[in-house]
Every structure is written in C-alpha cells, then in structure tokens.
C-alpha cells in the first residue's frame, strides 16, 4: 500500500472528505452519548439548543468564541509558515498581565483613549514571549514545539506568583486575583443591553486584516513560501529567519489580544482561570479552518458552540462535559486525515 499524489483534486474530493469527517464526528458523538446512557439524538439536540437555542445562548457562544478567534488566528498565522507555536496559552497570559498592569495604574487617568495603547502593550508582550523560542530555533536549531509548550507551564506559574504576590488585589478577600481594571478602560459593549463586548468586533477586524496580509502582501507570500518549502524559499532569496521572526511577532501579538480581550472585555481582572486552555483549543480552531483566517472566525464560533452547548447539555442529560474535548480531538484528527486524502490516493502495491 502506498500513496500517490493527486495533481488536481476534484471539487468532490476536496469537499467530500472534509464533509465525511464532520459526519463521522457526529456519529462518534452519538456513540459517546449512548455510551453515557443518554439518547444520542436528544443529546445532540441539547448541545445545539445550549449553543444557539436562545439569544442568551448565542451571545454566550460568541463571547466564548472571541478569545478562540484570536488564538486560532495566532496559530493559523504561525502554522502557515510551519512555525509550530503551541505556546498561545503563555502569550495569552502575557497579554493579560500587561493589560492589568497598564489598566490598573499607569493609564488609568486618560480614559478610553488608553485602550489602544493597552492593546498594543499586550501585543508587544505576547510577541516577545514567542520571540524567545523562535530565536532559539533560528540561532540554535532548538525545536520550538517543546520550548513553546514548556513556556506555557512557566507562564502559568508566573501568573500564580504575581496573583499571590505583587499583583494581588488587596481588596480581593484573599482570593488570588488582580485588582479590577479602571472602569473607563473596559471594552464597551457592542450594543446597549447586549452582553457582547467589542473584543468580538476586534477579533473580526483582526481576522480580516490577517486575511489581507496573507493574500495581498509580500510578507504573506513569503510566509507561505517558507511554510511550503523553507529550502526553496531560501534559494529564491527569501530571508527565512527574518520571515519566521516577523511571523512570530504577529502570531504572539494575536494570541496576546485574546488575553487583552478577556480581561478588558469580559472579566475585568486577571485570575488563574482566565483561560480554560484557549491557547490549545486555538490549534483545533486553526486546523479545522484549514488555516484560513476568515475560516477561523467560523470554526471558532462552531468550537465555542460545542463547548457552551456541551456545558448546558451536561447539566440536563448527565453526559460528562468532557465529551466536548473528545469530539474536538476526534474532529481534528479526522479533518487532518480528510485533508490528506484530498491530496493523495491510496494505491495497492
């Protein structure tokens, strides 16, 4: 058995396999629900209802999707250049720390005008956090997968230290959380009475900008070239290391915006449960979107819906909420396999 590349996959092939992957995921979801002793169809129905069955549910899904759009974009940007940034979680917390530092003291005097400055500061922090592992990759050839992963653990411990030490809220009743952001420095809601903040708007704008960078600029072209074949890109005169550094700055900055948006838009303060793994889930979001920046928006909302829907389904039907994580992992693996099958056909011999 071996694989034979297909030069020009037909439309049926390039859409059929990913569609089959989604169908298979739904089938596995039903099996898992049945395994947990629940009615599969009712369980799926409850997930959909919990994610989008009411105005409240839908807004909850969009709120949950906001950080996932940012981390999904961060990872899509990096993976496009075959820069394996698995450290979006660390970059998210870096952005959140800077948001709290600037938003509780330094910029609290100048009102809402401080928001863009804070966002920029957060992006710089995230960019610098990813710059370390990327410099180690380009200078010493250290694999960035492991270093970015290890940075996640280091960063969480740093946040834990900050929240129990220098950044602890003196009025926080002893809980390890930071002081709240200045009222004027909170991201406003998109519409009065609607529980959705401007972080979501910023996420949509970012997705459009990244799409523009990837398809309409030299940097986007270079990033794709490096990702497709770094050797060939180097022969073509593309400065591979410089492109990787630029990619890292962009990717780290995007992931940090997730932290900025969660603190300034949703929570108003920093705590250790700011991110339930948004950095890791961003990988699934990016892969399901086939690394397309606008696709990231759609898959982030889809993935957020599965989480929000599973939470509410779990309360009603008693199927463990971890079904959401299992489904997304299955969807990720099946989608990777489906993409593989669109490009290759299996032949005997």
């Amino acid at each position, binding site marked *: *058995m*071996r*694989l034979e590349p297909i030069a020009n996959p037909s439309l049926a092939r390039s859409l059929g396999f990913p569609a089959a992957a989604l169908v298979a995921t739904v089938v596995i979801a039903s099996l*898992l629900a049945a*395994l*947990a002793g629940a009615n599969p169809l009712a369980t799926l129905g409850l997930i959909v209802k919990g994610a989008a069955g009411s105005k409240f549910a839908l807004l909850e899904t969009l709120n949950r999707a906001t950080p996932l759009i940012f981390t999904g974009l961060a990872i899509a940007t990096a993976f496009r250049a075959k820069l*394996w940034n*698995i450290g979006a979680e660390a970059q998210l917390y870096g952005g959140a720390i800077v948001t709290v530092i600037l938003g509780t003291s330094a910029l609290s005097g100048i009102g809402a005008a401080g928001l863009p400055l804070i966002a920029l500061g957060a992006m710089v922090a995230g960019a610098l956090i990813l710059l370390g592992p990327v410099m*180690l990759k380009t200078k*010493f*050839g*250290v*694999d960035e*997968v*492991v*270093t970015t*992963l*290890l*940075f996640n*653990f*280091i960063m969480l*411990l*740093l946040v*834990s*230290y900050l929240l*129990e*030490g220098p950044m602890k809220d003196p009025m926080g009743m002893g809980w390890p959380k930071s002081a709240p952001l200045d009222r004027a420095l909170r991201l406003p809601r998109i519409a009065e009475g609607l529980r959705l903040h401007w972080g979501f708007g910023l996420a949509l704008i970012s997705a459009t900008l990244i799409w523009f960078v990837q398809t309409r600029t030299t940097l986007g072209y270079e990033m794709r070239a490096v990702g497709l074949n770094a050797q060939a890109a180097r022969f073509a005169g593309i400065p591979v290391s410089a492109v990787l550094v630029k990619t890292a700055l962009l990717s780290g900055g995007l992931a940090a915006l997730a932290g900025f948006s969660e603190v300034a838009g949703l929570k108003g303060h920093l705590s250790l449960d700011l991110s339930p793994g948004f950095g*890791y889930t961003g*990988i*699934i979001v990016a*892969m399901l979107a086939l690394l397309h920046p606008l696709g990231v928006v759609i898959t982030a909302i889809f993935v957020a819906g599965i989480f929000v829907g599973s939470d509410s389904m779990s309360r009603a039907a*008693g199927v*463990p*909420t*971890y*079904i959401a*994580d*299992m489904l*997304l*992992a*299955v969807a*990720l*693996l099946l989608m*990777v*396999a489906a993409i*593989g099958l669109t490009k*290759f056909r299996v032949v005997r011999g």
Partner: protein
Amino acid sequence: MSALFDILLTASFWAAAVRIASPLIFATMGELICERAGVLNLGIEGIMVIGAFSGWMAVYLGTGLWGGVAVAMLAGMLFGLLHATLTVPFGLSQHVVGLGVTLLAASTSYFAYRLILPEVTSPPKIEPFQPLEIPYLVDIPLLGPALFAQTALTYTAFAVVAITAITLYRTPLGLAIRAAGESPQAVAAQGLSVTGLRMGAVIVGSGLMAVGGAFLTLSAFSSFFFEMVNGRGWICIALVVFGAWRPGKAMLGALLFAGFDALQIRLQQTPIGQVVPYQMFLMAPYILSILALILMSRRAQVPAALMVPFNKGER
C-alpha cells in the same frame, strides 16, 4: 549552603530522585524508540494521562497491580496504533496528529473517569506498589536505600533501559529500527518494510509512555487526579534530545533532572524557601528542560529522517 549539603547527604533525597525519575525513564524510552524509527510522537503527554487513568481504574476494578500495568500498556499501544496509522502509512503531519492524539487520549480519560465515577469529589485510592528491599545491597550507605528499596515498577524502568539499549545496538531488529530513522531508502532496499518498523516502534513506544503514566497512579501516588501528568510528557521529549537519542544518556538525563526536582521540593522547606516564592521552584524543571535543549542543540545528532514521511517508490 549548609542546607544544600544537608539535603544531598540524606538517603531520602536520593531515593526521591530515583522515584521521580522512574515515570520519566519509561516515557523517555518510549519517545526515544519512536524518534529513533523516525517518528516524533507528541501524543506522549496524553498517552501518559490515559496510562495513569486506565492502569489505576483497572486496579480499582480488581485486576491487580500488574494487571493494571498491562491494561495501561495496552491502552497506550492503542493510541500508538492510531498515531502510527495516521503518520506512517498516510504520512500526515506528525505535529498535528501528535497534538490531536494528546487531546484525544487526555479527554477520553477524563470522560471515562466522569462516566465511571459520576458523583465523587475525591477519587478512590488503591493499594499501590510497595517498596521492595533487596537484601544486603540496601545496606550500602546513601546508594542502598536510593537504588535498592524502590518499588518493582522502578526496577522495571531500569530493566527497560537495558532492554532498549541492547535491542537498538545489539540486534538486527534494532539496526533496522535505527536505519528506518536515518535512511529509510536503505531499509527498503534491504527488502524490509519501513512502514512496519515505524508503526511497530510507535506502538511499542506508546505502550512504554503509558506505563510511565501508570507509574504515577500505581506507584508514586495512589489515585488519579486531573492534570496529574502536568507536562511530564513534554519534559521527556526534551530529555530525549538531552540524551542525544541514546538510551543510557537519556536515563542519566532523567535521573539528573529528577535530582533537581527532588532538590527544589526540599529547598522549599529551608530558609531559602522563605525568601524565594514557591512558584519559582516549580518553574525550575521547565526552565531546566529548555536550558538542556539549548545546551545539547549544537552537538545533537538528530535521526536524519526524523519527521520525514517515507513513501515507497518515491524519491
């Protein structure tokens, strides 16, 4: 300084270092076998979780301790088969598949845990492996209690290192595995199946990773907690690099690393721990891993075909 010497001169410190190293040794050998055959297995973290969970659950349901180890190994091999199928014959991205396997194995463990034990707030305990003193040898000062009063699973870890080293360097099978990771074309030219060798290596390696996870629940602690693997899998990937893809060196790396870990736990109890926040101590293992990667990167002899899919008939 004297606090440091006090720690280094206690037998319990050395015993703890060997104990902490044991799960790392199992999982590092597993990863090393995969990488020697040319496959990076990022499923390691999740496979350790499923090993920790399934081994513990099996013992809780009455298989006995060695039965638990066997169940963990089988569960690991199953996820290894999934990883190998996607990355070897289909040649899909080893990064993405590995992360996917980690997510799937970890979430499967948590899902199954909640399914079997829906209402418990604290997980039930099992009777773990007990230390097995080896007569006479245990009386050697310092080294005796460290090396010869461990559980049977720790002795197994050291046996696995020896078996891995002998297999890789002294048998035709080991030669074929190493060649699959260096020059798969040459292996194919000998009429051997690169696909078979690589898949076998990933499946066996994943089984060992799962036993490493099971060590946590069956020997180190006596029950299963969420997040209990806590990045150990990623550290093992760093240890493989640190050990320059050699079983003996990787084992020494794991022991050295575990020594630092045991040291930081004890330093927290000393006057130094009063000044330095405990989070800084907990960061040490991760920072050390990164430093080890930087240190070894210049001299590292990476298997030449690591992460390069092999497709018969393609040049």
